[in-house]
């Protein structure tokens, strides 16, 4: 058990347990709002995929499944590492925690790099909606709609990843150099929750974007 005395308790709380449970609950509520934030875009996706199934299938085949698949693996691994980091924090293993956080953040950066390459490729191929958009498809208009949604959802997701990477790096430094989370691992746990959530979003995005109709 960590040394409870070392946890600073804010004045509105009675004890460490209350403080910790409140923070965790707050984070989960935040995640619920995030689900609905992405939910709005998922509704757009569902409605249009239902309306233009063949255009979506065709457009989806223009996405780079190798990149998407690798990225899924990268995020899943980073989530696993993050889980170990949270564990290290609760065991007060400061160096291990710092290290694991660095690994997590690096995997996040790797994800962003791969995503960036993919974006660059797509811009070259004129798959960024707008004036320059061009696609060899039977129904270019609705393929463009697909790509609009694709850019939107992956973009918002990438924004979340970026925020996560920044936070994780920051926390990693604080763990390594300051030992900031000794007996006080709640922030790391919350960070972990956030990161896992970002991972879950991708787990759903991946098949919806890259694999609508790969078998034909």
């Amino acid at each position, binding site marked *: 058990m960590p040394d409870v005395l070392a946890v600073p308790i*804010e*004045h*509105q*709380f*009675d004890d460490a347990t*209350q403080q910790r*449970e*409140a923070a965790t*609950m*707050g984070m989960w*509520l*935040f995640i*619920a*709002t*995030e689900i*609905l*934030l*992405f*939910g*709005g*875009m998922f*509704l*757009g996706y569902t*409605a*249009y995929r239902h*309306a*233009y199934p063949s255009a979506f299938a065709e457009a989806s085949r223009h996405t780079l499944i190798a990149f998407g698949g690798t990225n899924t693996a990268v995020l899943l691994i980073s989530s696993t590492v993050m889980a170990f980091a949270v564990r290290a924090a609760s065991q007060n293993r400061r160096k291990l925690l710092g290290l694991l956080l660095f690994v997590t953040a690096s995997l996040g950066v790797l994800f962003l790099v791969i995503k960036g390459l993919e974006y660059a490729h797509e811009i070259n191929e004129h798959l960024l*909606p*707008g004036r320059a*958009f061009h696609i060899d498809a039977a129904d270019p*208009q*609705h393929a*463009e*709609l697909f790509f*609009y*949604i694709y850019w*939107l959802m992956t973009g918002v997701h990438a924004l979340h990843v970026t925020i996560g990477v920044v936070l994780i790096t920051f926390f990693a430094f604080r763990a390594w150099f300051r030992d900031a989370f000794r007996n006080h691992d709640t922030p790391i746990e919350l960070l972990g929750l956030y990161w896992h959530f970002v991972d879950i979003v991708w787990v759903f995005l991946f098949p919806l974007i890259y694999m609508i109709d790969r078998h034909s």
Partner: protein
Amino acid sequence: MTTATLQAAPQPRPLTKPTYLADGKTIRSWLLTTDHKRIAILYMISITLFFFIGGAAATMMRLELLTPQGDLVTSETYNKLFTIHGVVMVWFFLIPSIPTVLGNFLVPLMIGARDVAFPKLNLASWYLFMAGGAFAVFSIITGGVDTGWTFYTPYSSTYANGHVIAMATGIFIAGFGSIATGLNFIVTIHKMRAPGLTWFRLPMFIWTIYTTSLILVLATPVLAITLTLMALERAFGVGIFNPAMGGDPLLFQHLFWFYSHPAVYIMILPGMGVVSELIPCFARKQMFGYRFVAYATVAIGVFGFLVWGHHMFVSSQSIYAGMIFSILSFAVSVPSAIKVFNWTATLYKGSIRFQTPMLYALGFVGLFTIGGLTGLFLACLAVDVHVHDTYFVIAHFHYIMVGGMVMGYLGGLHFWWPKITGRLYPERLAKLSAVTIFLGFNLTFFPQFILGYLGMPRRYPVYAPEFQVLNVFSTAGASILAVGYVLPLAYLLWSLRWGRVAGPNPWQATGLEWTTSSPPPTDNFEKTPIVTEGPYAYDAQAAEAELEAGHA
């Protein structure tokens, strides 16, 4: 007033700590405060400001509508006025009103906590709110926006004039303030209740704030993403609502109303909560059907998410979806009915006093009932086809939002004013203004029901001459209403200095907030209270007995 009636409330101990108002006098101590009570005051000042901005827009609209020609302002200006009015009143006044002012002040006090769970986040919410407000004011000053508060695409994303993106950004930012507030309240209510304060011992106000927070947390992000999509479409010319791309303008409406219908319950539930405090106190009665009212509150919050499509009956949404949304709208009305009946029944065998807060509460019940019942007209498919987007709708929601929620807010403000400031307001003047508001309100908005059924469309600065008479009535009413609203502002400010000192519990009310001094110290309670009984332990017979014995 005697203290003998305070059976429920233990005697407050003499004050040893400074009140929260005296705890630091500098501007800095206010702007950097994390005290929920001070943050409540910050909100109170801000939303009052916004109310008068929205009210000024309403005043100009009503003046324009005196004549059918559209001669006071141009159509374009008028369109900007109702947009400003709607946006400011909804997002910068009514949604924050009771939750952020009374909610912030009272939630910790009512549950016996020292503060909310995340005080810094609470202050951040206010800054987000003000930043959002700054964007909104910026877009108003630099030329306004003419989309209506509903921002329907493709008008807003392609054709509209003005700073739509700035306005949307303002709402977006303020929205995150709301989310943070809601999150804070939910965690606070779950985790910070005093020992013994079980869920079914909570005051009804807490139940309503809890449910409201749930809606804030689950609905607002959808608004955020919807406005983002609209703004992106406007900025880059491509987007998912654009019919030229095969997009569906109705998708915007689905997303918008998925937020905005639940949001109307954000704008009424807290008012219901206030009324549920006021009626038992001034009738000296236990609340009738406490558990049912609590369940009804949660039911309104949850079912409220199922009915948004009733704003889209004639939008070319599928008629079958229309039917689903219609029947669900009727269903969501049932819990409201339960509440109205229970409030009425609470009066039975009470010992009723008619002080200002009670007048507001009774006004609320009457006007909410009318507003709600006319909501049923709108939920009725065939009737809505005729009255959709007419003044009938305008009258419906002003009856609920102004007649209901604003009355509830004013009632609550008067009721807890002594707790907030330590001073009593002048009772006679307050009663007078309550009656003025009630009369002015009905004169303003009742004629609009008739106008609506006659077919006068909303958002019309120029209208057919046969509608003029009723519009003149309405404008006349609005001027009375304006007087009614300026009065409280004046005498409440006056009372800060010259009002009678209130004492901890001027209404002999139950509830933990009345057990501490007025105004409360920064930490709220000398010692964490322990709760041993349910709310509203009032006794009408004892109150009468005392009256007979010659006290009070």
